[in-house]
């Protein structure tokens, strides 16, 4: 990418307070999100996807987390060191977020109108009446029928899919430059999933915003993203354009993820699953964190953590054996 990225995460290490001291949730995470980009972040539960996303807006629970190192550059500023006041100005205006569970993400005692208007009044200085008009337009935009009437209803009158549309309407209200969608379809039915993804895709082109889509579902990512960051146990293990990733994934973990996707056209067979499980946040794994589960692990994998090495200008892999020949040298 020639132009300056919209958001640039560098060397991000986040720790959480646990019963056994500070545990590392993400370690040295680095990747860029380009202007208007469509980035997918994929990994198992506990791989640090959400933690990374929440770090961009600094929305972690207070007092129980800390940033050990790193920078998140946006608009010439480091968001990790920005004042709380500056962060509030960015949240909802420049960078907005849609969360996983639409059933609990909306305030049950406030009307939809109130919840959409809030950001418009705060960031755009709209009056209550103007904001209401805009809220109805936004509900139209996220394809909620009969918006003028439904805008005054409370969330409990909406289904899960509809609530996620409302969440998206709230997020895009101020035309953010980056929309972070953290597992936006995980809690929804498959048919609704497809509709929400389509909506996000349309809105992205319509509003010309960058989208960072987080999912544990490689199928969702394949359908949506242009570039994919694969995370495992708090680290980026592979970062590549989606077609490159699906054509020639290099990290054994990515290969495992691919192999565990059901193929629609191939012969019916038992679905592959990666043996073992992701290490617990408190667990110490020497060397490559994937090595205990990796079928290709060598001696070097068990002792030293490999670096994230570029194998081509837009493809980075964190695997010592696989990058040895093409490696940095």
């Amino acid at each position, binding site marked *: 990418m020639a132009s300056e990225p919209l958001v640039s995460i560098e060397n991000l290490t986040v720790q959480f307070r646990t019963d056994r001291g500070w545990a590392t949730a993400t370690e040295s995470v680095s990747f860029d999100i380009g202007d208007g980009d469509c980035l997918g972040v994929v990994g198992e539960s506990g791989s640090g996807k959400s933690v990374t996303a929440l770090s961009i*807006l600094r*929305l972690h629970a207070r007092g129980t987390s800390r940033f050990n190192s790193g920078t998140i550059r946006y608009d010439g500023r480091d968001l990790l060191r920005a004042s709380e006041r500056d*962060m*509030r*100005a*960015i*949240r*909802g*205006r420049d960078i*907005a*977020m849609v*969360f996983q*569970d639409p059933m*609990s*993400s*909306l*305030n*049950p*005692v*406030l*009307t939809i109108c109130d919840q959409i208007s*809030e*950001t418009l009044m*705060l*960031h755009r200085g709209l009056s209550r009446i103007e904001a209401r008009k805009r809220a109805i337009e936004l509900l139209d935009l996220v394809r909620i029928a009969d918006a003028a009437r439904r805008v005054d209803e*409370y969330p*409990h009158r909406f289904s899960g899919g509809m609530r996620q549309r409302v*969440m998206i309407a*709230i997020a895009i209200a101020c035309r953010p430059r980056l929309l972070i969608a953290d597992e936006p379809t995980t809690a929804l039915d498959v048919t609704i999933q497809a509709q929400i993804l389509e909506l996000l895709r349309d809105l992205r082109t319509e509003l010309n915003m960058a989208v960072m889509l987080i999912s544990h579902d490689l199928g969702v990512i394949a359908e949506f993203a242009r570039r994919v960051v694969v995370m495992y146990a708090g680290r980026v293990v592979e970062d590549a354009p989606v077609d490159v990733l699906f054509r020639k994934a290099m990290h054994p973990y990515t290969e495992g993820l691919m192999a565990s996707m059901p193929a629609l056209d191939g012969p019916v067979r038992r679905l592959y699953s990666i043996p073992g499980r992701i290490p617990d946040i408190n667990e110490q794994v020497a060397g490559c964190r994937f090595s205990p589960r990796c079928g290709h692990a060598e001696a070097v994998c068990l002792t030293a953590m490999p670096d994230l090495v570029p194998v081509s200008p837009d493809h980075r892999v964190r695997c010592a054996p696989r990058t040895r020949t093409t490696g940095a040298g």
Partner: protein
Amino acid sequence: MIGRLLLFKLLQAVPVILIVSVLAFLLMSLLPGDPAVIIAGEGATAEAIETVRRGLGLDQPFHIQLGRWFARLAEGNFGASLMLNQSVLSAMGERLPVTLSLAGLSLAITLPIGIFAGSIAAYYRQSWIDSLVMTVALLGVSIPGFWIAIVAVILFSVTLGWLPSSGYVPMSQDAVQWFRALIMPAAMLSLFQIGFLARMTRSAMLDVLSQDFIRTARSKGLSEWKTVGKHAFRNALIMVITTMGILVSTAIGGSVVIEQVFALPGIGRLVVQGILARDYPLVQGVMLIYGFAFVIINLTVDVLYTFADPRVRYD
């Protein structure tokens, strides 16, 4: 919508009122001692006692007595007080404003302090602010009301001489004196209530603050004040309203003790005097008033709910 709810709740209240009035009626026959003997007075002849008994209708069969009791109540006739030279209704009417003033003022002290203390304790959970609020709240609910009231009288009335130790001035006569007479009793009554409300608010707020929609509110760029004061508090309000119903109920009970300590001529003091003097009609009357009060409190809570929580709206 509210009208229908109100009608429905009022219909529900009817059996409650009926049961309370039956219980009040049973007071006559269930309490130890013979009302006729007590009413006739010391040293009365057997004949005189019999006359009183007939006068009260106590010689009639049970169901006749109960029927007469309801007939009297339907007419709004609560009978005449035995120890006071007036009807039960006028005796209670005179004293009701005192108790209502006391309960109202104490609620006015309790609500802002209790809600604020509970909210900041929840917001700064596990900090020294939280510990401080919870310790004081625990003291508030644990210290007996009569004891702290007596200590307050010694301090503010006897030693410092700032406030009267007893007595009551109607608001219509002198609002300042009314306030001076009531502020200490009301504050004493509030101690328990503040402690109780603060603890309930804290737990409600803790629950709400950990909800996903609070994170949504923050992700919109809202200030902490808006996030907590609007998004969290609107939800915690449901719990606060429930607690308020309980608070008003405890204020009725607490007023009995507080009115006694501060010699306030309210309903609570009246019923204590009535019980000591075996003034059956008076005690029955107060029982009914208390019963009505609880029904009205619960009705109010139910109606307030529908404003606080759209999910319980009947539409």
